[in-house]
């Protein structure tokens, strides 16, 4: 599903040039649950952004669903993104002005799903995340765990092939965190490919492979042998 070849990302300011990714080559197959780990500033989030098509690499190749997308325009990336990728962020990133229902509905609006179909699918996914009773609440009225459940609902409402999670438990307590992890494992079991960036070894081991980055390079890749669930 995903293959990168010597992916490079360089940030330039007037005086400093920072290499965030240095020739990263990885491959992720459909159905995998891959965790990406590494210290702050090692390039995890940059890699995730490029894989999620919300940022462009400075060099190298990126093959997503058999398309070479590294030089795609914003418009083409946006097309691929909205049909295939769901995002879960550490800080939830719900839109404050929209209710729970409307937040989850938004990706369906962008993929031009009809009104009644939208309602059905949003209700289904809210039911699944046990958030139906909060459908008319605004994000500020919810706890962190509830907000992340809404964010997950929003990420999966379009049935994406790929779910990208950037420290999904970083802002949650351990109980809410493990709820989120269980959900991700469940989604993976249902067939979704998941790539998750995390600092936590505990969370990382929910996946079936761990990629470690240091200074923008892949240092190790291990298969997780022990299944926690």
């Amino acid at each position, binding site marked *: 599903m995903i293959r990168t070849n010597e992916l490079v990302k360089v940030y330039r300011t007037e005086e400093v040039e920072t290499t965030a990714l240095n020739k990263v080559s990885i491959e992720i197959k459909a159905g995998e649950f891959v965790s990406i780990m590494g210290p702050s500033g090692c390039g995890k989030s*940059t890699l995730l*952004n490029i894989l*999620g098509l*919300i*940022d462009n690499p400075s060099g190298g190749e990126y093959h997503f669903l058999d398309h070479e997308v590294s030089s795609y325009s*914003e*418009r083409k990336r*946006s*097309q691929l*993104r*909205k*049909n295939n990728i*769901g*995002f879960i*962020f550490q800080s939830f*990133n*719900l*839109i*404050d*002005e*929209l209710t729970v229902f*409307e937040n989850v*509905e*938004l*990706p369906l*609006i*962008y*993929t*031009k799903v009809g009104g009644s179909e939208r309602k059905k699918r949003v209700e289904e996914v809210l039911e699944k995340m046990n958030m139906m009773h909060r459908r008319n609440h605004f994000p500020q009225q919810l706890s962190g765990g509830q907000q992340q459940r809404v964010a997950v609902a*929003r*990420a999966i409402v*379009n049935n994406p092939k790929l779910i990208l999670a950037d420290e999904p438990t970083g802002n949650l307590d351990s109980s809410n965190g493990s709820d989120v992890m269980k959900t991700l494992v469940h989604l993976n079991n249902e067939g979704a490919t998941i790539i998750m960036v995390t600092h936590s070894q505990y969370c990382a081991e929910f996946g079936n492979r761990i990629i470690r980055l240091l200074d923008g390079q892949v240092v190790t890749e291990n298969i997780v042998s022990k299944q926690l669930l």
Partner: protein
Amino acid sequence: MLQNYFKIAARNLWRNKLHAFINVLGLSIGLGACLVIYLLAEYELSFDTFRTDKERIYRIYSSFDGVFSGFNRGVPTAMASLVEEEQQLIESSAAFQVVSGSIKVDDRDLLRQQEGIAIASPTYFDVFPDYEWLVGNPVTSLSEPYKAVLTEERAKQYFDITDPGEAIGQQFHFRDSLPLTVAGIIANIPKRTDLDFEMFISHSTIEASWLKNNYEPNNWSNTNSSHQVFVKLQSGIEPEQVEATLGQDAKALYKKDSYFGDDVDAGFHLQSFTDLHYNADLSIFDHSREPAHMPTLYALLSIAGILLFIAIINFINLETAQASRRSLEVGIRKAIGGTRKELIIQFLLETLVLTVVAVAVSLALAKVGLRYFADYIPEGVGLDITSPLHLSFLLGLTLTVALLAGAYPAFIMSGYKPAFALKGKAKNSGHVNLRRGLIIFQFIIAQALIFGNLAIGQQLNYMLNKDMGFEKDAIVYFYVPWQSANEKKIILANELRAYPEIKALSLHEQTPASSSYSTTVMKYQSKSGEEIKYSTYRKFGDTSFIHLYGMDIIAGRNMVPSDTLYEILVNEAYAEYLGFDNPADALGEQLDYGDGKMVPIVGVVDNFHFSSLHDKIEPVVIGSDIDDYGIIGLKLQITGQEGAHIQAILERMEQSWNKIYPGEPFEYNFLDETIANFYRSERRASVLSTFAMSIAILISCLGLLGLISYTTAQRTKEIGIRKVLGASVQQLVALLTKDFVILVLVAAVVALPIGWYMSKQWLQDFAYHIHLDWWMFVLVTGAAILIALLTVSFRALRAALANPADSLKYE
């Protein structure tokens, strides 16, 4: 999708109430001003647009050069028959007299001073066929003498009837003694026409009645502005052709047949009917409404444009300042699949929602504005929501403003890179310079307007307080009825002279300074044999005239009492014009008063302003002729007296008046008010510029407020660190406000020369005017800096007083 956009737009507005309020307010004020000005312009530009063949209709007017010169919107009465001969060029012509006067129906009360009356022949309706005849037609109703046609409204007013047809055959009297019979009824005239005649008297009545003494037909000597000739040219004929043939013929006839002969070179020209409402030099008709003043209208339209422009700039400014707050939302929307196009549409729709709210508010503001400026706005100007024109203007305005105001912020915000936007780090620094530029632009306009406003105010103050060369305080004057017998004037004057409260009284032709004037061509045979002719301003009066108005005799003596022209006084300017540098040398010189009557100069009075300060002081002659005295002027002994006391004197004067002129209204004027009224249009300009200036300042301040909010938010951390390091509140406020002072100063460099230039242009209209001094420049910039500081200091102070622990937690 759309629903979602509108929903989020509404919620966004609600959530950021202050921001939305500032934004909507700024836009509403600009829009409101724009709307009022649009309504005014639309009103003025819609006059007589409905007339058939209006492009082929022209008015003939006169110009003169010689012993008297200038334009006259009328033509000599002999022009009427001349145009009828030019059938190859002229399809039809309408010669008419514009008159006014009292109407008496049966024994009912006299209807005084009825306006909108034309003495016209049936051909008037060939040139202007757009009248709806309810009863009769032009030929049957206006061919015979002593016939009149009324509008339905007038007919009902005069005869107390419900069916206008009942008025046919009814009789009434014009100016007491002209009997007229109603022979036709036309529908009421529309509001937006300058041909606002509500009564037509048949033209043949002139020849048949005493009217012929007033309106001498077939005469070339007398050019009265009330005698109008309109022509409809044959298709394909250009006005220049008519001027070349008819104009030249008339010119020759004028030279041959008029009293002035070779002394005056007359010219006859065509004025397009479509120009009638807009030509301030020629004006429309006597007693009619004033023409639209095109320079004012253009000035207003540019003001509307500028105000709207700065309101839009303000909007853009405030929106882009808010942009970083919205960057996260942009990031999320893009991450979950929103395209740039979708985001642009979303932001544009948000702007549209804001604009719609602003337009709604501006409707209310416009209503208030129309009421507030009621004195300056013609009746009939107003918003009509059912008018397709007004509705499409509102719609067009809303969409244009939404697009202009929304496009730039939408374009910028939708372009954020999602990876950065999600971190709230959307690149924004470039817009700071843009925002500064916009603020500078706003302050250029504001300061230029402040300067102009100051100049207008100073000039007004100067005009109202300048020594006119005569006294104007505590002087009351009133007109005696037209063509009043001399004995009546004298009896009334003598009765009033007996009042202990009246210090001085004089019978005269005009007050020393007046807005209307009369001139006489006088001739002087100089010692060298040269004949000096001059069209001299007349200020005739009795021997008390110069005492009443406190004029100084600088050489010679006052005239001796006489009811006819016997001796004259001249002003210093006339003495100089005649070649006497020493006024005393002019004494004893004889002047030819037009018809060969020689009169000696017995005194020279000091120069005084004979009209407004627009005009230079010109040669003036003061003589006596009781027939010409239409005014009684008097000085009241009112030092330290209460208003009620003055009122009591005026009431007693009215009793004296009523004994001599029963039934005539007693209408008095205070001279100082009359003189103040010379400057009505300048006061109007002053009100207008104050209005434009206030709005420009207000909107600019809203812009500043937006910018300071943004700056303090951006610099919260910096302020915290500086505080921890020991900066005082004063230092921090200075740090935050310094930049704004610099912006205002930069704007001043551009604004002051603009303000200076515009004011200088405006002042050139006055023969006597103020000088634009250095202190005005300092004052304007000082005021602008003060306004800017007052606007930003509150926010700056709040930021500087914030607890540093809070601000450092911010990141």
